[in-house]
């Protein structure tokens, strides 16, 4: 796709719509944005994300960017990360933030929730071993507090430890002193965050996107 195409490419878009659940309109808008970020190329690289000025002040910047290049988020049963992604992968990652439809059954909601929590889990579990270890969790909290200056490091550790302990208590209940809690598995992760109503909170509105409004 070398040339700028302002009209939606019908068969491709149909495929995307089916795969991700976005409407044609939304796909068109996201495509425009993709092209804007990638400077009209097919593939998006990590550096392209650096051109977004607002992202620079976000403490989770590197993790968010990493999530786009994480194979687990757009391919099934794959690990590792890639150097560049195409529009399809971009769309798939974005589709994790779609709001749930109005009339969903409980099972469908559950699937959506699992999906979104899986995305979050992958963001935390940087070494792809299926569990969030204490070190990884500490890293998460440190990143969150990274803008708070000198208070950050030790308190982050404390908070992460406390959180880890909480997960362990909730998930495992009783542990012998010499047992070792390896890390938060996906099931435990689901358990502790089940009250957060992720399926409605982890959404952004994909209506009214106009990439020309911002840089």
């Amino acid at each position, binding site marked *: 796709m070398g040339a700028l195409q302002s009209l939606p490419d019908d068969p491709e878009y149909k495929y995307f719509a089916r795969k991700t659940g976005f409407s044609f309109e939304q796909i068109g808008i996201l495509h425009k944005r993709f092209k804007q970020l990638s400077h009209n190329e097919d593939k998006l690289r990590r550096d392209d994300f650096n051109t977004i000025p607002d992202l620079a002040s*976000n403490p989770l910047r590197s993790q968010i960017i990493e999530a786009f290049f994480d194979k687990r988020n757009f391919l099934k049963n794959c690990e590792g990360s890639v150097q560049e992604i195409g529009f399809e992968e971009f769309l798939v990652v974005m589709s994790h933030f779609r709001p749930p439809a109005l009339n969903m059954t409980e099972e469908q909601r559950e699937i959506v929730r699992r999906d979104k929590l899986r995305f979050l889990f992958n963001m935390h579990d940087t070494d792809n071993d299926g569990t969030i270890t204490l070190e990884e969790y500490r890293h998460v909290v440190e990143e969150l*507090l990274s803008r708070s200056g000198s208070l950050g490091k030790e308190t982050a550790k*404390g908070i992460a430890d406390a959180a880890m302990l909480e*997960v362990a208590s909730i998930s495992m209940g009783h*542990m012998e002193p010499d047992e*070792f809690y390896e890390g938060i598995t996906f099931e435990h992760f689901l358990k502790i965050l089940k009250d957060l109503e992720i399926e409605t909170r982890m959404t952004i509105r994909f209506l009214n996107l106009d990439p020309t409004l911002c840089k």
Partner: protein
Amino acid sequence: MLVSAHSHSPVGSRSFLERGLLLLVVLMLLEGTVLPLGAASSPDTSAPNGAGGLDHRDDHRGIGHDNMTFQKKPFPVLGINYGHIRLPFEIALWVLLASLMKLGFHLIPRLSGIVPESCLLIVVGLLVGGFIKLAGEDVPPVLDSNLFFLILLPPIILDAGYFLPIRPFTENIGTILIFAVIGTLWNAFFIGGVLYAVCQIEGVHLSQVELLPCLLFGSIISAVDPVAVLAVFEEIHINELLHILVFGESLLNDAVTVVLYHLFEEYAGAGEVTLMDAFLGVISFLIVSIGGVAVGTIYGFLAAFTSRFTSHTRVIEPLFVFVYSYMAYLSAEMFHLSGIMALIACGAVMRPYVEANISHKSHTTIKYFLKMWSSVSETLIFIFLGVATVAGPHAWNWTFVSVTIILCLVSRVIGVVSLTFIINKFRIIKLTNKDQFIIAYGGLRGAIAFSLGYLLDNDHFPMRTMFLTAIITEIFFTVFVQGMTIKPLVDLLAVKKKQEAKRSINEEIHTQFLDHLLTGIEDICGHYGHHHWKDKLNRFNKKYIKKCLIAGERYKEPQLIAFYHKMEFKQAIELVESGGGVKVPAALPLQVSMQNIQPKKQPPAATERALPQFTKSREEEIRKILRSNLQKTRQRLRSYNRHTLVADPYEDGWGEYVLKKQRMIELEKKMTQMSNYLTVPAAPSDSPTMRRARLASDPNAFYNIKTPSDSVPTIHVELASPQSPDSVNLVDEVPKKGAMGQGLSQRNAADMKEDRERMMMPPSAGKGEKVEDDGGETKNPGLQRCLSDPGPSNEDEEDEPFLP
């Protein structure tokens, strides 16, 4: 906010006789208050009751009566001068009556479960009004509009505004505004218009009611009332979303009501409203609402700024909050702006900054004063409604009243349904049919409508009494019928109830994480959504505003850390307070220790562990709270000593040592099960900061530093055994055994603040879960030290800022 206590615990244990006696006393007082109230309200004392005659007696007993030559009378030893204190006395009596009623209702548990308090209070008002009328007196015009708007309403609104849950409110602000503005406008015009049409029908004999008065009536009656909503919704514990939607609507529709009311009142005399007037009305609405919010915000910032400097005069901190808020309300009212919106804005704006600046005690004071005032206000409002109903004057018109009631319901339903249809297109979390029903059904009318009607001038509005009757009937209908049935309906429809917020640290971390994540994704999408703006606002807030308004170094603290500290605080206090309590906690046996989650391959070297740079003042705070609580614990335990132990060793001199020895042995036995105090796992005890902390906390302490047995910190979380209070008692008997040292618990207190991050409290475990240190033999001296701590000096008031 009604502070209706939902703990009916002592009722069951009280004997029937006690309850009956208390009810009797309440009723007698009720009678006693009614008569003076009734008598005092009327100037002529022709009443047969004793109180009325007091005024006469007053005249006769006074010394130096005019027109009498000075005759020497016996010196009046006793005299009564009721007129002197009449007004404050009456006020106090009313307040006392209201409070006793509140007390009384909770003695009848089943009643308060079925009937909401507001209904009962109106009934009481009716009774009181009835009594006064029976006594032949004029019922005092208690629900005077000035009294209502200037004295009774502000505390309730301030309480609501100060404790407004900001996050759900701002997340749903669009929906709330649409319901408040468009919904109220629709209601007003629909009711007014249809009423006018009905009045024009032949045979109703109401053709003298013109369009504009009808519209005015419509605007008065269409507004959902915050007091009534609060009173009823408080008891049904509905989920947060619905609560904030209905409640937010009731607050924000004040601007619309004010504008419509003044508009129609002005022009009802002229008899017509032109397009120009309507346009001016719209402009006026914008000014009223935005102006109100602006006034409130200004005062809010002033209050926050003032609180920055109150570190030396902690006692009057709450006063600033109240006075600034009240002035915001009055200033807004002065300019005919929306006082309610000003008050809400003031409270919501000042709260985060003020709470970062004021002391813990001031925070508690503000909270309890607000709750107390708003509770009394609410009670009084409902009682007065009842009294005002009896007072009349009434002009009952079947058609008008019944049409009003039907129309209110119909228009509300139509309004909510159609607006929701539109709103759902823009919402992520759609409003279901159940939600819509509750929103429609929860649109209660209350005293504001009555007061507005009362304000109407009788000359311009000859049908004022008919309006008032209709308003009162509507209020009664909504409060009684809708108020009573909403609770069973909520259960029937299985509407989601309020989840008991047990804020876990994981949820907090992920809430923050999600905020940043979503902002990032929005930036990547190029979409300036509300996360983006919220993030910008937060950054602006942190960078500029907090620096101005928050004293000291506190402004740098990010929210997650603040939350974590608050949680620790709470748990620390809970733990210590329940440590001395008699109740046996029914906690789950939970045994997860740090050891379980620390990776084995990395024993952190002692030297690597850098201790955090917490401010001294924070450490002081925690230490003080711990000490004062430990001190309390110890004092409480002493009282157990005196009364519960059979042999009091202090009186039994020679047996003292024997007893103590005995107890020591028992104590040793219980050591393995006992865990009574806060500890922190062993830390590198010889670090200079530790020593410094210990020195700072108690210069007389002997140091008996026990090096930890293993380098990995361990916490065992166990049940407190039922014998623990006794055991602690026993240890209290034992004098300071010097050699055993005081190291541990003092170190614990120091550890608490120094190595705070290593103090793990299982958050969701039950009360009384204790944290125990490793090593059996060190517990004993720790306990001793813990209990023989001299405690804080009395004059050293806890004056550190309260953690938000």
